[in-house]
């Protein structure tokens, strides 16, 4: 069993019921092929960074699952057939590395709540703290990373 994660983009024009049905259907494909769905996270409607088939918006769905090495191929075949799926991507999660990116330490973030396998939890708070870290790099605009060691380590 390997760990994988899948992100697919559904047509934003799809109504609620049809969307739920599709999400169920793909979860069913995972289950039917001996996999198990670990987590389903609907990111919701987002602007696409570029138009795909003249669409500017899409409904993002994130699925974490475990399964045999043959499963991703079968799953992406199913995703490819479905016309409501604009785009999909399956990525294998590496086991040895912590796949969750730790929060930026220098932003004085509490690292303690990192332990539970929250896949996207650290993403949002990190964004809020990024501006706070930016003003430190005033003296050397070209070497923004360099002052990292000098930033007041008050919280550590």
């Amino acid at each position, binding site marked *: 069993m390997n760990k994988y994660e899948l*992100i697919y*983009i559904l047509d934003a024009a799809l109504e609620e019921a049809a969307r739920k049905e599709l999400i169920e259907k793909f979860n069913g494909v995972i289950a039917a092929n001996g996999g198990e769905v670990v987590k389903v996270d609907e*990111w919701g409607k987002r602007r*696409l*960074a*570029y138009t*795909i088939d003249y669409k500017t918006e*899409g409904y*993002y769905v*994130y699925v974490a699952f475990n399964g045999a090495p043959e499963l991703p191929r079968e799953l992406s075949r199913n995703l490819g057939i479905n016309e409501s799926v604009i*785009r*999909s*991507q399956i*990525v294998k999660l*590496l086991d040895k*590395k*912590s*796949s*969750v*990116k*730790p929060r*930026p*330490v*220098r932003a004085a973030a509490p690292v303690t709540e990192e332990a539970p396998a929250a*896949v*996207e939890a650290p*993403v*949002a708070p*990190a*964004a809020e703290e*990024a*501006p706070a*870290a930016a003003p430190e790099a005033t003296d*050397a605009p*070209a*070497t*923004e*990373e*360099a002052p*990292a*060691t000098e930033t007041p380590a008050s919280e550590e």
Partner: protein
Amino acid sequence: MSEERAPRRPRGRKPRRKVCAFCVDKIEYIDYKEFRDANSRMRRYINERGKIMPRRMSGNCAKHQRQLSEAIKRARAIALLPYTAE
């Protein structure tokens, strides 16, 4: 090529050796999902045109630059980031 790396420096302070920000933060794996936020701190490794910032500017180490470029490319594939932007 060797010209730009010439050791002589007429005057002024020495440029500081850049440090890989990911090493400083002890990051093991750069997740492409971080590009989900429009103003995530990862965005500064991409310029306005959507290009990946070179190592000589960011100061990243080779290992993290590889991970970063992989993450950016994955994010591009699912339209979290543009391939190109004007």
